[in-house]
């Protein structure tokens, strides 16, 4: 027990940041769940983080107020951006959001009165691990409630087959907009916690590294279930930390190798609801193909007529 507590205190910071990365991954998952591959969560995080830094410096805002401000800032900017982003088709959305992350950095550098410019902004830490855990729990609760709800099923339908979804009366554009606003809200909150825990944010805090890490976390953890994002982010945070004891700078390579192995053997990620559903019915592999069934029906029909 003592040993466990020792390990816990050793990895306390790693765990905290693992959860914050998990929130970013969850923000990415939110839009991916409706088929929108977006890396804009880094930008939403920047809006949340810098709003919080400004409010803390000027108005002494508390953490709870900061979280609400971050949520609103992220959601608002996501809502505005959705009108541009959702006009694009799938691959172009991804490219546009990468561009967005790059542009965000340019803005951060060139607006020193708001962001501190290239020197960044310092903050006073107000949050603890328990705050981060609490916020993560609330976000996971939201996703747990949404899965299989009216919105959740419509989101799955839109991701898997937008045309078929639209002929069921689901407005693809509307569902994707809601998912982006959700992504913005969570991204904004994650940005606030990130800023608070780091106690310093600059132009490189919410940049391409973060964008790619959270996307990789979603792929690793599983892009078809909300819990996958958190699992992926924590694995990605802990693995280099543990490995750095053995191989100094090799952890980047280890991350890459892990991702490749997962892509080959678990292409749908660590957490995969479909695998579970299949196992429940003892179906190891996909059952008969449609063609085989059609052939069978044909044979039966012939047997009946002859």
């Amino acid at each position, binding site marked *: 027990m003592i040993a466990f507590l020792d390990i816990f205190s050793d990895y306390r910071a790693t765990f905290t940041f693992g959860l914050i990365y998990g929130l970013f991954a969850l923000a990415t998952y939110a839009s991916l769940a409706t088929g929108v591959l977006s890396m804009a969560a880094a930008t939403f995080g920047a809006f949340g983080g810098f709003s919080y830094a400004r409010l803390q410096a000027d108005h002494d805002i508390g953490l709870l107020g900061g979280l609400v401000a971050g949520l609103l800032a992220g959601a608002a900017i996501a809502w505005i951006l959705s009108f541009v982003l959702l006009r694009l088709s799938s691959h172009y959305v991804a490219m546009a959001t990468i561009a967005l992350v790059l542009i965000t950095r340019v803005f951060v550098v060139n607006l020193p009165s708001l962001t501190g410019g290239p020197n960044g902004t310092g903050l006073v830490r107000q949050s603890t691990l328990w705050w981060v855990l609490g916020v993560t729990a609330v976000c996971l609760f939201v996703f747990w409630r949404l899965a299989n709800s009216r919105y959740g099923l419509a989101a799955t339908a839109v991701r*898997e087959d937008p045309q078929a979804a639209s002929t*069921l009366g689901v*407005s693809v554009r509307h569902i994707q907009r809601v998912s982006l606003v959700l992504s913005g809200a969570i991204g904004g909150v994650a940005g606030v916690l990130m800023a608070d825990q780091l106690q310093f944010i600059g132009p490189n805090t919410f940049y391409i590294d973060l964008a790619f890490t959270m996307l990789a976390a979603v792929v690793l953890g599983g892009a078809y279930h909300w819990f996958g994002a958190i699992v992926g982010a924590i694995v990605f945070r802990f693995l280099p930390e543990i490995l750095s004891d053995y191989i100094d700078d090799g952890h980047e390579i280890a991350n890459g190798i892990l991702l490749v192995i997962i892509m080959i053997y678990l292409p749908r990620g660590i957490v995969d609801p479909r695998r579970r559903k*299949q196992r429940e019915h003892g179906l190891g592999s996909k059952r008969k193909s*449609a063609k085989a069934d059609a052939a069978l029906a044909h044979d039966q029909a012939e047997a009946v007529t002859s």
Partner: protein
Amino acid sequence: MTSSDETNRQGAALEIVGLSKSFGGLRAVNDLTFDVAPNSIFGLLGPNGAGKTTVLNLVSGLMPSNSGTVQVFGDHVEGLPAHRVAGAGIARTYQNVRLFPGLTVLETVVTGFYRQRSARLWQTVLCLPSERRERREVEEKARALLDRVGVTAPPDRLAESLSYGEQRRVEIARALATEPRVMLLDEPTAGMNDVESDALGQLLVTLRDEGLSLVLIEHNIKLVLNFCSHAVVMNFGELITKGTPRECVENEEVQAAYFGKQSDAERVQSVLGVRRDPRAD
């Protein structure tokens, strides 16, 4: 869903006038006009590539038409996005079943109830009792629908793991969940045996008796003859003939479209040296 004139409301369930669609130089649908009476099963026939599925895509709003109008019980739906067309009461199934991977049989059908449900996102998150009640009710309705269309597989099985014939029935249940006034079915019996197609035919008759109007693309001539009251036949995007199914099938132009012209057939036979058996006449 623009203006609805009262004269038409009594008229056709589905009225198509001058519908056209070109893909580049190819006229997939050319000046098509027909109407479907309420409470009827209507056949849309024609050889492969005649443009039947394109007609369904145009009617359901999946692709824009070049010209023409489509009315559902007097409401214009041409030019509307697909989800608004669905809202006007048109539901459809697809030629190559399009279920959502990863969803169970029950979830698939519940997805179809999207428009009937009113739960907002925040109500869901806050676990309001109204949302829970709605979820229960919708699942109950979905089970009843699955029962009606004759799906016997357990509702918590993955829909994609069912047999082809059963997937088609799940898709029909999903379409029925939108509570449509007009239902478009694209080859509903493909991959089914005779017994299964007959059962499907009976289901269509019950649905019709309950007030639904059905448009059927079908190659199973027996099914069309037995269950459709009217039909149109298309070839190369144009309407060749309309009438009762028997009139359509006996039409010479229709036979030529399906099997080639008689003169062609005779020429082929003479080349092959095949003579018709005189006893057959």
